[in-house]
């Protein structure tokens, strides 16, 4: 995953909005994609992507260069996503979206896989997404999720087992 130029990052940390805009444009496709899978709602994902970057801007001064900037952004996005899931106002929208999602037919493999992933529990889904979609290493994903590396391995394995079972059973509407 691409990392920002140190000069751009330092400028953004110092409050340079032009530099920060470059960071937003660099990472917004990744953040939005992650949140779309994580939240299972495109409109909500766009809102939370926006909120993620506001959080990133507010917290930039505390970025300590002890991890990759991209991992740090993922961590902020993931926390914003968790907050969003728990928000009553948004959750109502999410709850309305869920039945429609579950009833979507899966005529093609790609849609079928995505529907299955969306049916995983939050913990399994986020671990799988970071590894499978964004290509993070187990160590990097552990850093984002703030869990031991072994836990990431275990969750990814569990997710894959459940997806395999899901496919072999022809798909189920309820959460895996």
């Amino acid at each position, binding site marked *: 995953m691409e990392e920002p130029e140190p000069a751009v990052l330092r400028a953004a940390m110092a409050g340079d909005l032009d530099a920060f805009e470059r960071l937003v444009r660099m990472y917004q496709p990744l953040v939005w994609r992650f949140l779309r899978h994580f939240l299972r709602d495109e409109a909500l994902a766009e809102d939370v992507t926006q909120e993620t970057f506001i959080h990133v801007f*507010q917290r930039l001064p505390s970025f300590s260069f002890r991890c990759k900037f991209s991992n740090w952004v993922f961590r902020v996005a993931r926390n914003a996503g968790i907050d969003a899931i728990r928000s009553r106002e948004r*959750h109502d929208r999410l709850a309305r979206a869920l039945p429609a999602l579950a009833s979507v037919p899966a005529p093609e493999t790609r849609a079928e896989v995505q529907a299955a992933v969306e049916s995983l529990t*939050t913990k399994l889904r986020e671990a799988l997404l970071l590894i499978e979609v964004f290509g993070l290493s187990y160590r990097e994903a552990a850093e984002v999720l703030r869990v031991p590396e072994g836990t990431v391995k275990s969750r990814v394995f569990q997710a894959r087992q459940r997806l395999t079972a899901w496919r072999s059973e022809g798909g189920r509407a309820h959460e895996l």
Partner: protein
Amino acid sequence: MNCDEAQAGLSLAMDGEPPADLAEPLAIHVSACTQCTRFNNTLRAIRQGLRLEALGEVPDVAPKVLSAIRETTRPRRRRRAPLAAAFVAGALVGATFIGVGGGRSTRVANADIPDRVVAAQQAVSSVTADLRLIERGWHQGIQERLFTGKLRYQAPESLQVELLDRTRYPSAAWARSDMALVVTGDRWWIRAARPCPVEGVPECSQGKPVVRLVTRREPFADDTPVPLDLVTPVRSFALASAPVAVGSKHIGGRSAIGILTTVAQIQPLLAGVDPAGNLRDLYSSDRAELWLDEKALVPLALCVTATAGAERDEWAASHGYHDAPGTVVLELTLNRVALNRSLPPGSFPYPAADATPEDDNFIDGLPGSSTGPAPRWLPAGFRRYRDGMVATEGGPRVVVRTWTDGRAWVKVRATRDWPGGRLFGDLGEIVRQVTLGRGVGYASEDGTRIGIHGLGIDVLVTGSLAAGDLQRVAGSLGLAGLPVPSGWAEAPTATLAEAVAATPGLLLPHNLRGFGPPAVRVDGKVVSLAFAGPGTRAFLLVEAAGIRLDPPVDSDVQGVRVRGFDGRYTVGRGELEWVERSRIVSLRSSTLSLGELLAIAQSLERP
């Protein structure tokens, strides 16, 4: 190799981290197993389906983000209830040490032990001991694992912990979990087996050990900690209420007193023997019997016993453990303990140069123009340790000054380059405002970190002292601490009295023991109170106006009665929620059990 093992290996291999020496048996198994072949094919289909998804048009949020930032430093949306930093991912808990309500006679006799432990650290200049550790339940195929090793400590922060794995494994395929940590002030080195999930053992435990070497280390650095609780368990007792005594006896010729506590409370001590995460996980509410030297309060023995209960069973199942209630899952003994003897040269040997050094960027010594603030008051006996400066690329220039006495320490970090937005010093999401001399400061939930935002200077004071003493040190720096600016993350910090005044009907714990005063935050109509106790014991109380709970988002939700109302408990998040008189109340903890949360809930009263 069975199918579960093979599929675990296939999953790891899919991500480019195949367990060493597994390729051949894995290939043999998969070639003869249709189930695993199907599993492998499915993994590839999943990857293809996800990585090749049609993205469509990615929304451009940059204009809205920049507009929001320009308008205000806060997000335009309502702030949600923040989460206390204490709620790290981890074990759930379940036991009976909450300390709400009436006292017990067994506690009275040892009421002063927490204060004595904190005070005793100043009298410890060195410790040597042999270590013996037995672990049970790590893996179904291994009845118990045995480790032996040594502990060497010399004040203030030279330390060596070594544990050699003496377990008799079924075959050479099982890698030994040897571990060594050596800290000599400015150098920090660790070598340990690479951790892997239980279900991946023994295959994934093969491979090179993890080795890290950090040079130019800042004294008492957060990121390269010295497990000083192995020497004196200060963090396990700094906020503790009177402990439950289990008696006295002799251990290795030393008089010892026994204390009944929980894994969560002694977590800092346990982390000292497992800095790399190679031992099994322990359930936070499991019973821990800790034996301390009667005079020096140095740990001599520890015994962790599995407790009973549905919550614990669920936790064990999720970790792949099969602990029967009453099973001793971990025993640690310190033998041949010697205190305050001069250690011979070479007691902390430099490790072999087997790792690329990581530079922590601390430069010893301060030029005359960069002295940084120093406290006018320190506990008797404290003297200067190391002063210096940290200047990382892109980060603020920080002056660091430290003082010590025995194992006790105080550190003051100061910078004039802090760009703001939040307090300097990583105090956590919820802080507590404290009065410091002529101004104010902000304490972390557990009181071990105090931040000061002054005119042109930002300061962090940390240390192993009792919270009151640390506050006194911070107050003697001669700085007039200012309230944080309105746009900073900590701006909604409030005192308890302010929260009560702003929130009619606010419920607060009554007769709560074993926790410090809460850090309080008021975000509109949401009040968050973070309570920290000894070790990792902590909980968050959040109250907000509302008449119904959100629909559950987790699958592990169970219904419970709370204070006569219908509520729910989410196991994975450790969260108890209910609605009471048009208020949504949430109690959340990663280290307290449902029973303990219910006891706190029951104690809630209007002030």
